[in-house]
């Protein structure tokens, strides 16, 4: 699983990039594989489903969650920054792209990339000779 982003954390780290008015943060991510699929669990607190874009094209997965800039306010304590989330992965696995599913709940995106039939492990019957 190669990744095409910087390593920088949202908690304890600033934006990985600032572009004009927008700040971009790298969301924390768990990735695990089972026999059937590769699953991503990505933390994007503050993002609503309508403001999340998930793209999978030629093996590159791109996640972009938009977060509205907070209104001007006088912070007494300022321990984390608020802004968009952006992260990309190269997925080196044959994916059944038709059946990718994504769900965003309580600020966590669960994205399931099912494996193409050809790369799923198969149990081979061994016959007695």
């Amino acid at each position, binding site marked *: 699983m190669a990744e095409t982003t910087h390593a920088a954390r949202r908690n304890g780290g600033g934006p990985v990039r600032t572009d004009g008015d927008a700040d971009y943060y790298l969301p924390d991510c768990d990735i695990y594989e089972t026999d059937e699929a*590769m699953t991503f669990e990505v933390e994007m*607190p503050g993002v609503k489903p309508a403001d999340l874009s998930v793209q999978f094209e030629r093996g590159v997965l791109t996640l972009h969650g938009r977060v509205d800039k907070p209104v001007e306010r006088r912070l007494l304590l300022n321990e984390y920054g608020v802004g968009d989330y952006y992260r990309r992965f190269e997925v080196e696995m044959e994916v059944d792209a038709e059946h990718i599913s994504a769900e965003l709940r309580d600020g966590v995106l669960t994205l399931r990339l099912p494996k193409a039939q050809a790369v799923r492990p198969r149990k081979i019957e061994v016959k007695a000779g």
Partner: protein
Amino acid sequence: MAFELFRQFDPVMQMREFGERMNRLFGGFARPEPWRTAEYPPLNIWEDADAYHLEAELPGLKLEDIEVLVQANEVAIKGQRKPAEDQGRTWHRRERTACSFERSVRLPVPPAGEKVQARFTDGVLHVTLPKSDEAKPRKIEVKA
């Protein structure tokens, strides 16, 4: 391309283990940015004329998993991030941490305790702590 700056492969990401991640969260590297914090969860607190507002990002939790306690001018947040299921999984990345947490902060003046409200939306906890009447700014008429 707009996101060209992101396209840099970092081998450290691939090797990060749970322990290293914890170090990072709890003060592993020194950065001068204001949002750097040694405690979990990081908090943002601001005020307006009527109330103090406290926000914390707690993705994956539910409101019933979070406790908000107010005593005099101290506000405490408690909860637990449960560990992910492990069986049958081969991990490629593990950056989300499991931990119990408790944080408390002291406000400049005690809030009106019975009017404190907490809501939890899209993984963000927002606590509104209305100021007691004595603590609100008062406009003083200046007489000639």
